[in-house]
């Protein structure tokens, strides 16, 4: 059972990496997104609302847990939103300079993206003890699991919409 559990995980990971799949959808000719700031704001609002719905469905909080959890969640989500502001700003800049991007610009953008990734992980670890204070351990851990998966999902989805840097 144990090995089957791990093997299933790895099998799917292997299957996902077929060259005809993921990366072929991200060639240099992938068109740049043409949405405006208002579209992006609406999309982000929609994703935030859906993330909240998903957390609600999966957490199955009691009334007293919910009363303590949601204010803290909103505070955490506001911190995460600041990091995502940086990520979306980077995407906008990436689209603007894509065709004429210099080595310095490319380097700067990937470093800022790396900073954003590190900040998100740090935020999650900083907030975990606070969620532990308002939820039973398994529920606090479940929230972190969900939050991590949602962030990863958003990142993969965003990346799928952008062409790779043209060397």
């Amino acid at each position, binding site marked *: *059972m144990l*090995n*089957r*559990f*791990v*093997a*299933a*995980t*790895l*099998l*799917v*990971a*292997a*299957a*996902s*990496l077929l*060259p005809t799949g*993921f*990366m072929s*959808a*991200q060639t240099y000719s992938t068109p740049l997104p043409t949405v405006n700031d208002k579209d992006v704001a609406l*999309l982000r609002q929609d*994703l935030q609302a*859906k993330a909240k*719905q998903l957390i609600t*469905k*999966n957490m199955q909080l009691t009334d007293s847990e919910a009363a303590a959890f949601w204010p803290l969640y909103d505070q955490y989500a506001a911190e995460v939103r600041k990091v995502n502001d940086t990520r979306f700003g980077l995407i906008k800049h990436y689209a603007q300079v894509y065709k004429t*991007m*210099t*080595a310095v610009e*490319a*380097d700067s953008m*990937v*470093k800022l*993206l790396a900073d954003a*990734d*590190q900040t998100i*992980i*740090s935020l999650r*670890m900083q907030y*975990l003890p606070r969620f*532990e204070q308002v939820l039973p*351990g*398994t529920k*606090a*851990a*479940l929230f*972190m*699991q969900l939050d*991590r*998966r*949602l962030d*990863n*999902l958003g990142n*993969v*989805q965003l*990346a*799928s919409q952008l062409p*790779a840097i043209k*060397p």
Partner: protein
Amino acid sequence: MLKKSIAALLILAGVLLVPAAMLAQQQQQPAQQTQQSSTPAVSDQDIQMLRADIRSQRKQIIAANMQLTDAEATKFWPVYDAYMQEVSKNADVRVSLIKEYAQTYDNMTNQQALGLVKRWGALDQAFTNTRVNWMPKFEAVLPGKKAALFYQLDRRLSQLIDLQMMSLIPLIGQ
């Protein structure tokens, strides 16, 4: 209940490229539930082989996208291989955490759950730090834009692999 949450996560992965459907319907999909139960039992050796296959395909994708000259390739691949050795150490710990998660899943205590997510978070931090720490080494052997492209590809592939892995791991307590 366990199967239900596996199905939910499979759907979560399945909607990756469908923004409108993202996260909307993640529960109650019995048709998806057979994927784990039909997977044959395998040994640690099989797991090692699968991981080697993932590494090989990752390398092929990097090679196909980087368009390295012969001179660049000569310098790049030894650094890449050394980098991947570091990444593999992190992955070894992830596999052992997944095993521990599976072993404790049915009767997981609050302390075990918190301990696992904290260790997972520490692994995420270590992996992201590894990637950042290696950037100057790639910049030393590649032109700036190609080094940035490598970072971009590596990040995307890592996130995709992680997402696919997580799609088969049931959520805590479900």
